[in-house]
């Protein structure tokens, strides 16, 4: 067996992926079912010259992560539903001030304390819209331990290069699942960093509008002595309430993601070409769907799967085109909540095909058999 092949837990894979991508700061707070991310970071970061700190609460850990990143160090935190809610205030700051950072959110049953050890997918909308105001954010949704590793690497890279917070959204099953993973399957590539400010100090504008809409980030100590604020700011970095300047400031952060969408979006399709029914699912529900598609195809039923790996921004063109090409009569959306992903699917399809729901909120994963049964019913 190669030394790079290991049985890894999903949470552990997130931590190791982040370290491999160059993350050297982690601040966290204990919460089930994500604590293993912090535990692995506490053990591994000091070995590679990084820093781990357990802060006094979830809010503080998000603040510390942003502070570390403002200092020019790649930083990450991990949490679950209620803790994710507490982080939303500072996450809004990171969105507004464009501070790179990665937040792992391992979804458990909710609302509130809910079912801490049981899986759910109830934070699909919180991950996108949890913080206040108009903002850009990226959310990645791994469906395996191998992807927890590779997508966390991608999260660090996207966060750095685009100066945007990235959420790695796992459900408890993937977070606590152990799978055999070949770490070498992710090719060795040069470490990716944010663009740091270079050039003249005089007249430097920390939020200058560049062609790629990604302003180079000043690193303390490099002589720029810039100002960073959560107040709506002009390109110079200082607060503004001039209507057109304020509009431009917020619009640039959302335009930025639109401009780089091709780099951000990621999805997988399975047996979609001729599908009469397409399933759209993420996380453990997508794994169940994968099995269901295989079982249904064996029965001769034409069923396919579209799996968003980048959940937000939602790969809407991919879904629209896959539905159009296949001529699917309907789309089935199995998810462990009362229907969140389906709302986005409905928005994207805008009536081109009906979106059928399959939901579970009992802390149990949706099984391949349940999806197969729903698919058979949809096709009759």
């Amino acid at each position, binding site marked *: *067996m190669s030394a790079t092949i290991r*049985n890894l837990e999903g949470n552990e894979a997130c931590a190791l992926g982040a370290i491999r991508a160059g993350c050297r700061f982690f601040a966290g707070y204990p919460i089930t079912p994500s604590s293993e991310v912090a535990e692995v970071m506490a053990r591994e970061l000091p070995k590679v010259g990084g820093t781990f700190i357990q802060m006094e609460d979830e809010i503080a850990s998000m603040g510390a992560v942003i502070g570390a990143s403002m200092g020019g160090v790649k930083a990450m935190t991990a949490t679950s539903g209620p803790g994710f809610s507490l982080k939303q205030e500072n996450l809004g700051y990171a969105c507004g001030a464009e501070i790179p950072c990665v937040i792992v959110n391992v979804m458990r049953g909710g609302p509130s304390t809910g079912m801490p050890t049981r899986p759910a997918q109830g934070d699909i909308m919180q991950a996108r819209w949890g913080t206040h105001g108009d903002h850009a954010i990226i959310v990645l949704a791994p469906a395996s331990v*191998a992807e927890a590793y590779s997508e966390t690497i991608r999260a660090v890279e996207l966060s750095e290069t685009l100066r945007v917070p990235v959420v790695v959204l796992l459900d408890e099953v993937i977070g606590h699942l152990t*799978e*055999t993973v070949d770490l070498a399957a992710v090719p060795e590539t040069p470490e990716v960093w944010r663009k740091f400010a270079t050039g003249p100090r005089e007249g430097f504008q920390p939020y200058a509008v560049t062609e790629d809409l990604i302003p180079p980030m000043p690193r303390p100590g490099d002589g720029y002595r810039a100002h960073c604020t959560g107040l709506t700011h002009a390109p110079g970095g200082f607060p503004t309430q001039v209507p057109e300047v304020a509009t431009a400031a917020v619009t640039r952060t959302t335009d930025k993601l639109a401009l780089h969408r091709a780099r951000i979006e990621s999805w997988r399709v399975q047996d979609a070409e001729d599908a009469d029914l397409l399933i759209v699912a993420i996380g453990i529900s997508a*794994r169940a769907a994968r*099995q269901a598609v295989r079982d249904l195809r064996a029965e001769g039923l034409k069923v396919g799967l579209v799996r968003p790996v980048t959940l937000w921004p939602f790969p809407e063109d991919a879904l629209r085109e896959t539905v159009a090409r296949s001529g699917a009569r309907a789309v089935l959306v199995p998810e462990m909540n009362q229907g969140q992903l389906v709302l986005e699917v409905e928005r994207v399809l805008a009536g081109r095909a009906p979106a059928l729901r399959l939901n579970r909120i009992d802390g149990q994963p949706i099984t*391949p058999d349940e999806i197969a049964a729903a698919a058979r019913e949809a096709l009759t």
Partner: protein
Amino acid sequence: MATTEIRFSGSGGQGLLLSARILAAALARQGRNVAQSNAYEPVSRGGLSRSDLVISEGEADFPLARRLDYLLILDAAGLGVSDHLLSPRSLVLADAELVPDPPRGDFATRALPFVETARSLGNPRVTNIVALGTLCALSGLCPPEVLLDRVLAMTPAKFDRLNRDAFAAGLAMAVPEPV
């Protein structure tokens, strides 16, 4: 995708998660893909504890147990929760002492003296290793020496001798059931 599915079930503190992890490590060394998922109650000792292995070539489509090939029950706490996963392809291995009424149906069930054997070796805590030996021999999933190597690598060295004896006793227990 063809899978082989194993469930270790019993009571918290019986070392079920560890023995599943050991088997998973041995299988990974054999080039198999293993998905392991656990469930336990929020107590360190006692209460239902279970660990599932789904073994496949390449990544499993669905990584959770659907139809068990092997169900190990080491304590009555593990009764009842797995019955819906049993089919004619299943083999149930239950401890003869702690599981007085194991599931029976259109599948094979064997009651074996795991706990008693471990006790006779001097420590009931190696019950999980005895069972691992039996499971290894009955399933043929991986060569016994590969599994024993992982047992010794993943448990404290001071228990090496005891674990070797327990594993050997488990292997020896896997003789065909007398008719």
